[in-house]
């Protein structure tokens, strides 16, 4: 009796917790609200199975508890029942999978009008690079990384000259415009994650990974690293601010191009060496 009741209460308690606990996802701030929808669908289907099976177990434990004068039913198999259950499960699983794959297809297909932002991760912080007026990000190589060229742009690649370098922990994005993040790391694995955006992708040294999204509301969001990257992993935070066009333009105007930064840094070094000399 107690056992059946406990299983019943655990099930009811789980449902109550699900609907009334204060812990739920943050308000979505990107176009990936359909990920939330897929989760809700999954909740309904799996929740139904969970409740049905737990109630069934509780009922069995209550109804068929031991009695030494009674014998259990002797029924090793029931082909029909087994095949019905198999098909029902297969249909349920397909109902989960199909919408999931549709959304995944959107997730891995970047819209053509998306503008690019390079996210540059290192132990333990974030920098960003925008393609500048030509819309093309210059090529990079780890070997080019020096004090003057902290992003490691290949100097010979002219596409990189007008790239805007954001050497701060803060990135601004345009509202309602699709953006493709090109993800680059110079050391270990990282993952560019903003809970409200829902999207996620690891950054792997040696390759450039990507994902895209469209911010849907303005605001100030926290960036977290979501792939373990050593002792400072938990402190690898940053900020993303979603702006209306005007504010974005103001911020963009303040950023420095690669060409200018290189010139500035070289001057600084010449000054330092000349002073030493």
């Amino acid at each position, binding site marked *: 009796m107690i056992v059946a009741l406990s299983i019943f209460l655990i099930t009811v308690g789980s449902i109550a917790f699900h609907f009334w606990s204060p*812990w739920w996802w943050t308000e979505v701030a990107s176009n990936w609200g359909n990920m939330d929808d897929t989760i809700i669908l999954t909740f309904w289907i799996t929740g139904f199975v969970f409740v049905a099976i737990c109630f069934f177990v509780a009922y069995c434990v209550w109804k068929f508890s031991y009695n030494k004068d009674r014998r259990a039913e002797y029924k090793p198999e029931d082909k029909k029942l087994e095949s019905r259950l198999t098909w029902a499960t297969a249909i349920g699983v397909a109902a989960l999978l199909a919408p999931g794959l549709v959304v995944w297809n959107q997730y891995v297909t970047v819209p053509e009008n998306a503008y690019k932002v390079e996210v540059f991760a290192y132990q333990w912080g974030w920098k960003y690079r925008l393609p500048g007026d030509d819309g093309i990000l210059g090529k990079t190589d780890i070997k080019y990384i020096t004090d003057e060229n902290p992003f490691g742009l290949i100097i010979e690649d002219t596409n990189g000259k007008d790239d805007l370098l954001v050497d701060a922990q803060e990135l601004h994005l345009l509202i309602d415009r699709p953006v493709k993040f090109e993800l680059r790391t110079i050391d270990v694995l990282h993952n560019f994650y903003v809970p409200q955006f829902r999207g996620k992708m690891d950054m*792997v040294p040696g390759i450039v990974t990507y994902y895209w999204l469209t911010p849907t509301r303005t605001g100030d969001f926290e960036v977290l690293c979501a792939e373990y990257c050593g002792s400072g992993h938990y402190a690898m935070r940053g900020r993303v601010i979603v702006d209306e066009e005007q504010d974005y333009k103001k911020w963009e105007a303040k950023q420095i191009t690669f060409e200018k930064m290189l010139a500035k840094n070289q001057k600084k070094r010449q000054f330092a060496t000349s002073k030493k000399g």
Partner: protein
Amino acid sequence: MSDEYEHKLEAKSDYATDASSVPSTDIDSVPKAELPDQELYHSHSWWTTYVFSQDAKYIGIQYALTAVGTGLLGLVLSWLMRIQLAFPGLGWLDPAAYYQFVTMHGMIMVVYLLTALFLGGFGNLLIPLMCGARDMAFPYVNMLSYWAFVVAVVVLLASFFVPGGPTGAGWTLYPPQAITAGTPGSDMGIILMLISLILFVAGFTMGGLNYIITVLQLRARGMTLMRLPLTIWGIFTATVLAMFAFPALLVGCLMMTLDSLLGTSFFMPAMVSLGETLTHEGGSPILFQHLFWFFGHPEVYIVALPAFGIVSDLLSVHSRKTIFGYRMMVWAIVGIGALSFFVWAHHMYVSGMNPWFGFFFATTTLIIAVPTAIKVYNWILTLWRGNIQLSLPMLFSLGFIVTFLNGGLTGLFLGNVTVDVPLSDTYFVVAHFHMVMGIAPILVIFGAIYHWYPLITGRMMNETLGKIHFWITFIGSYAIYFPMHYQGFVGVPRRYFEIYDSPYIDTSTLLLNKFITIAVLIVGAAQLLFLYNLITSARLGKKSEKNPWKANSLEWQTPQMPPEHGNWGKELPKVYRWPYDFSVPGAKEDYIPQNQPPSEIIGAKVEKT
């Protein structure tokens, strides 16, 4: 029936099958033995009996005790981690220690506790007894297997005492960070971890060959594969998986050792570390992830399949009912085992591998839910119209059904590639895998220990202590992991030493952290109660009668209980049926042991198995 008579009977039936095609009319006939009786090693000293034992039963117990001892360390580490998460103000741990404890906790629990306990422990104890063999096929290799495991554990523990401490790379040991500065224990700690794993794989291979060959070659006369208890099917299939999966881990470990010690670049691309460009070039970190998860996903089933098998037997025995759909259960075990090699990259949806793989692996992953669901249905249909005894093993089995169901269903979230994107690397994942491959299998382990304890010691464990242990463990661990899923929805990332006051995280989430930690401390402490029960019952427990649960499988039918060296006295058992003939209409008792000949149960309307 005298021995002599039986011999004559055998000779006659053998002669009949040899001489003519007329089938034997003797209803008690079994196929004749294909191999001569096994020659056994007999120990002569204390050392060879208790330390370097070659008796599978002892080796099983040695494996189990070593695994549990290591697991206790894993438990203490989890306490320390949880205290840090709930009460960061205490400052007991620095980030390095926290990450080292996370790593060691994970690796210890998955490999050194669960794998070793299910296969090394229960495998050794149960395979020869349940198959009706005198011992494993290769007792000496079996002994070596255990001692290789001991050395692996010692090397693992030694890493706590080397400069830099144990590795803090996370249990997945992803390069490059596992072997570069910035991760604790990236010099000696990681090397010892890799060596320990290599030793474990070597030791396991010796044991695994034994389990497979014993099941295939040394079954008693009449014990067809489709008469094997599901426990053996689970352990057998898990061992086959391990033999295919562990080599991937082994080469991964070897390659990373070379990367670290010799400067090769299997997994190491050109990268910057501490402001310097390293000499590595051209390697692929994702390659390691593929190797790791090609091992790591079957590993989940290496732990789960023995639990599936054992819980099937516990449910059947303690509800006095035939396991429902035995053949489907066997095929589900085999099917899950085979499919488990085609799903590994669902751990890598957001790893940076080609995103188009997501379609394939999401599909295979959700397909595997079908045979798994069949198993759950068959467990609950075994309860239906059963005669359910709420003994300790039954309680733990019921606990398993609830937690496994919960953890299995959240697997459908993570396996479905789109849903995985927001949830991966959050506490949802932590909650999911603890529920499904931590709590659920451990509940089975407890049930199995309460069930087979009399077979090992001849005494019963204390029922009251056992019930307290069950309720705290079951309710407590559900209270730990169920709410933890919702932290994942909030977006709390895993492997965070400290979460700070993040703007998007409500303070109530931190409150939930405190609640979970307190539950962890209580559930952990309840395990001491279990240990106390385990130790004292060996001396003080109520004496058990022979076959105390009235089970059918062979391990309870030995001439002596606990079984002696060689298990079966002079004559090996003969098997006439499967182990699930419970409550057969027309039979005198509500159970018919596998070795009870048909001539003794005339009138029982038993289906042919």
